[in-house]
């Protein structure tokens, strides 16, 4: 089964692949278990199915469970080969928010209480509200409870926001003028290194070594590090996720340059919701809207 274990310090958890029940005590669950494990079902290193009828066990938070549903929808993984451990989630911590960048202080230890985070670092002791150090995706979480599970571990959690507040972050950008929006993305995407970490972390970016950002034929992107190439890469990433992105926020979490890349996908999700009334990763029988059509549609 796939879960999380304590990493090299208490602030970090790493994925763990358990094959023997004697190792089960390695598993942990805490607000540092940020990584979405769903990707391991379809991306390298792919977790193989066990011998005979053995299933793959996977631990999922609310957001991760939507990725699993999306993978099942697209027939990339079969429901009957999974055993899903659903974990209602109060949110995971954005490590970048624990300590302001400028101070350069080193975190020594962290203690969590119900709604407080006590950070002890080399320049003293700091108390932060749990709600302030959450990842951006958690602050706008609509599905803290897994939407699919075989067993549910823990108490159900209430969503943090109402559905009409879901797209406040993209709405803030929509309020800017066209020039300001272009300038915003020019400034943000200018930092992009094209390390493709966002793509690699994405559980739904399943093309792997056939990704058109890297193929020579067709050659969509060159090696030049200029803005058009960076824009193009993010268009590729976002448009290939249109109507599929489950907003697990992995792309944004792994970005070494802290570019809010998932905003682009949120905007596309907002459009698909308005235009085609579809939300990704909720219904096992659902079909992603760009993989189908309706002759009856008018007005588009």
């Amino acid at each position, binding site marked *: 089964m796939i879960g999380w274990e304590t990493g090299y310090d208490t602030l970090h958890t790493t994925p763990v692949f358990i094959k023997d029940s004697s190792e089960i005590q390695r598993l942990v669950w805490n607000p540092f278990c940020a990584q979405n494990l769903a990707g391991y079902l379809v991306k390298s290193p792919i977790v193989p199915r066990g011998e005979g009828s053995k299933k793959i066990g996977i631990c999922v938070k609310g957001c991760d469970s939507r990725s699993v549903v999306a993978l099942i929808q697209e027939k990339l993984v079969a429901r009957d080969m999974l055993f899903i451990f659903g974990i209602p989630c109060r949110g995971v911590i954005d490590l970048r928010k624990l300590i302001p960048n400028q101070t350069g202080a080193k975190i020594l230890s962290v203690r969590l209480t119900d709604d407080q985070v006590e950070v002890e670092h080399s320049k003293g002791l700091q108390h932060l509200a749990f709600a302030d150090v959450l990842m951006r995706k958690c602050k706008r979480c609509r599905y803290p409870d897994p939407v699919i599970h075989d067993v549910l571990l823990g108490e159900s959690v209430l969503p943090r926001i109402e559905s009409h507040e879901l797209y406040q972050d*993209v709405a803030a*950008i*929509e309020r800017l003028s*066209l*020039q300001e*929006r*272009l*300038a*915003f*993305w*020019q*400034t943000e995407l*200018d930092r992009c290194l094209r390390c493709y970490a966002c793509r690699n972390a994405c559980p739904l970016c399943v093309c792997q070594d056939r990704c058109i950002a890297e193929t020579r034929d067709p050659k*969509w992107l060159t090696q030049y590090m*200029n*803005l*058009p190439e960076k*824009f*193009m890469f993010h*268009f*590729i990433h*976002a*448009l290939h996720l*249109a*109507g599929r992105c489950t907003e697990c926020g992995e792309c944004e979490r792994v970005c070494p340059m802290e570019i809010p890349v998932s905003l*682009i996908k949120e*905007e*596309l999700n907002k*459009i*698909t919701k308005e*235009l*085609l009334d579809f939300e990704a990763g909720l219904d096992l029988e659902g079909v992603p*809207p*760009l993989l189908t*059509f*309706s*002759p009856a*549609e008018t007005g*588009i």
Partner: protein
Amino acid sequence: MGKTDSPTEKRALTIIGFLCNWCSYGGADTAGVCRFKQPTDLRVIRVPCTGRMDPLFIARALILGADGVLVSGCHPRDCHYAVGNLYARRRLEILKRMLPFMGIHADRFHYTWVSASEGQRWQQVVTEFSEQVGGLGPNPGVTSFHTGNREEL
């Protein structure tokens, strides 16, 4: 852009037209055969079907500084391949709504349906789109922030 004597100001528009082989390409041909007067800004690329249109074709053209992109195919329910344009219209509409979020004017992109017999309609579509793009002026692409110079690409 600024001064009127800058070279970009005098530059003719670059509009890319993606036309489906079976309807709109024929429609454009009909317009030509009938000697309808049309703007000359359009560079036509023939595609087998609008279902072949990857929204990234359009994104790439606009990112690199094409002033406008026009996509035209068979009328819905009239597709040579039965359903290609039904897939296409979802993709194209989503792209059209997403472009302004990235700072690209949505009016630089237009998609429409023109059949092979509609020479007149083709003339009207091209003329109107060309005027619409002309009204927006040259597209600096996404690089203006650094250099304002598209030649650097």
